[in-house]
């Protein structure tokens, strides 16, 4: 009845670690199913950020006093932890950003802006989030490059890879999402990066939806760049990671100018700090880095394989339960999908569904999920999305299915 509840009792027991889940919304127990937008934070992360401000707060680098020393050690320790978290060869390959969006913009400006020439091609997919599309559009307009797309096929939402090798041949850059935030598709990024790099393209992976949900190893994936955000993986907002292969980072322009990113400054010219500091102008989000490290520790204590197994089981269960609802149209793959389900509930508009669900305490998201071109391709203006994380339960999926039936009943009176 409640699917695999018993099999994942260890994860359900983790709910108590997340203070925000312990509340009522509109008179009902909160059911938080908007994790693809941002996850809730465990007490360990909240406490770590607080502990930093209460004890170690100071600016990083070049400080001689004790607090600055602690802040620097913690900040650079978080960089080493992030390198380990994603299997990077060295901490110098880890750049702190504000999030996935800034990471991709950094590559567009500092790598592509320097190396791309008029007529060069960039290959994306039709399922990219606006954050892995718009930076390339801006860059392409600036340097006169062209953008092509790997198509998405049908409601199943898989990439059509039949012409991939021909498409990627001659492309300078291939950028692709690991897990689609709108469809839940898990793309074969390892295979795609290998084929892209064999064709001479630089490969970037948008790991916003996979970091913190699945094991991630940049050397196994074989990408040149990989970007993700802290806030979708139990960490604070405002901090993210860009991984870049060192030899590429060395041949990039700085991203922004300012303090922290220089080695020497004269009135006429300056010399840049070595990587990664060359890309980190200004005071960084120090408390965010402390919090992100706590989040990585928290997730690894559970095990990312375990979180992934739970995501897949919950999504499969949700797909099956929702498919029983008359008139529903489910998007994305039926099996092997990441922890989210997108759908259209008959002719009821997504915003009406989300609003009604909110009245009984279920947090969903409706709209185009920052993938407007993909939605147009699928012939839908907007969809409803339920997205899961480690603390969601099979009982919550049952509750969602019941409420969706009630919403349908309400609008068919």
């Amino acid at each position, binding site marked *: 009845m409640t699917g695999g509840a018993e099999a994942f009792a260890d994860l359900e027991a983790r709910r108590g670690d997340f203070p925000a889940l312990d509340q009522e919304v509109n008179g009902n127990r909160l059911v938080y199913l908007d994790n693809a937008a941002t996850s809730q934070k465990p007490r360990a992360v909240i406490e770590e950020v607080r502990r930093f401000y209460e004890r170690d707060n100071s600016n990083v680098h070049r400080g001689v006093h004790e607090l600055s020393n602690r802040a620097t050690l913690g900040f650079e320790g978080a960089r080493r932890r992030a390198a380990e978290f994603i299997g990077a060869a060295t901490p110098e390959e880890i750049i702190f950003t504000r999030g996935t969006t800034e990471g991709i913009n950094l590559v567009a400006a500092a790598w592509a802006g320097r190396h791309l020439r008029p007529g060069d091609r960039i290959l994306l997919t039709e399922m990219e989030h606006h954050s892995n599309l718009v930076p390339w559009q801006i860059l392409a307009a600036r340097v006169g490059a062209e953008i092509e797309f790997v198509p998405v096929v049908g409601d199943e939402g898989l990439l059509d890879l039949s012409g991939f090798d021909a498409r990627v041949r001659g492309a300078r850059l291939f950028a692709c999402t690991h897990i689609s935030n709108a469809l839940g598709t898990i793309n074969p990024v390892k295979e795609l990066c290998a084929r892209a790099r064999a064709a001479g393209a630089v490969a970037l992976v948008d790991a916003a939806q996979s970091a913190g949900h699945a094991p991630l190893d940049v050397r196994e994936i074989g990408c040149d760049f990989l970007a993700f955000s802290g806030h979708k993986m139990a960490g604070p907002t405002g901090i993210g990671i860009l991984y870049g292969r060192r030899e590429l980072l060395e041949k990039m322009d700085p991203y922004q100018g300012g303090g922290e990113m220089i080695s020497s400054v004269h009135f006429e010219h300056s010399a840049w700090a070595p990587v990664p500091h060359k890309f980190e102008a200004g005071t960084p989000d120090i408390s965010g880095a402390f919090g992100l490290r706590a989040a990585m520790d928290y997730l690894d204590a559970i095990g990312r394989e375990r979180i992934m197994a739970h995501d897949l089981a919950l999504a499969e269960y949700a797909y099956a339960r929702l498919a029983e609802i008359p008139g529903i149209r489910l998007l994305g793959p039926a099996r092997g999908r990441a922890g989210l389900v997108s759908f259209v509930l008959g002719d009821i508009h997504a915003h009406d569904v989300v609003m009604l669900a909110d009245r*009984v305490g279920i947090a969903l998201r409706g709209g185009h999920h920052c993938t407007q071109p993909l939605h147009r391709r699928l012939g839908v203006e907007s969809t409803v999305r339920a997205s899961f994380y480690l603390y969601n339960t099979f009982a919550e999926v049952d509750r969602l299915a019941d409420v969706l039936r*009630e919403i349908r009943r309400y*609008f068919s009176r």
Partner: protein
Amino acid sequence: MFEDLDELYQEVIREHSSHPRNFRALPAPARAVDGHNPLCGDQVRLFVEMDGERVKDVGFTGQGCAISRASASMMTDAIKGKSRAEVREAFGAFHEMVTTGHCDEGKMGKLAVFSGVHKFPVRVKCAMLAWHAALSAIEGGAPEVTTESPGDEGPKP
């Protein structure tokens, strides 16, 4: 389960949403204005044919939530045959009603069913979308309007 929402989703609104009136494109010389709510992706294309100072015919196409569809449907019924000045006046009264709840039922007529919208500030833009397009159409304004114009944020706390 959702009885407390009946004030927003009145029966008349649900009926207009599932069976919108004047849901059709008009040929030239009717003027077409695209209304767009970038927050939710709602799109409405409004067609207005004027006969001098008066709205001769009006239609709309597009997609949106129940509130925006019903509002577009009832707006088209309401402005047909009205003068420019009357449409402007109706726009102002409707805007005031959905943002403040203040409603002169004699003046608003059937549109009074939208008075409950003011209690749901995030839905004000939905109700206003077609009205913005209509105002632009009769004024000869921009061929595209969005709900991001000032004043639709609902009552200030």
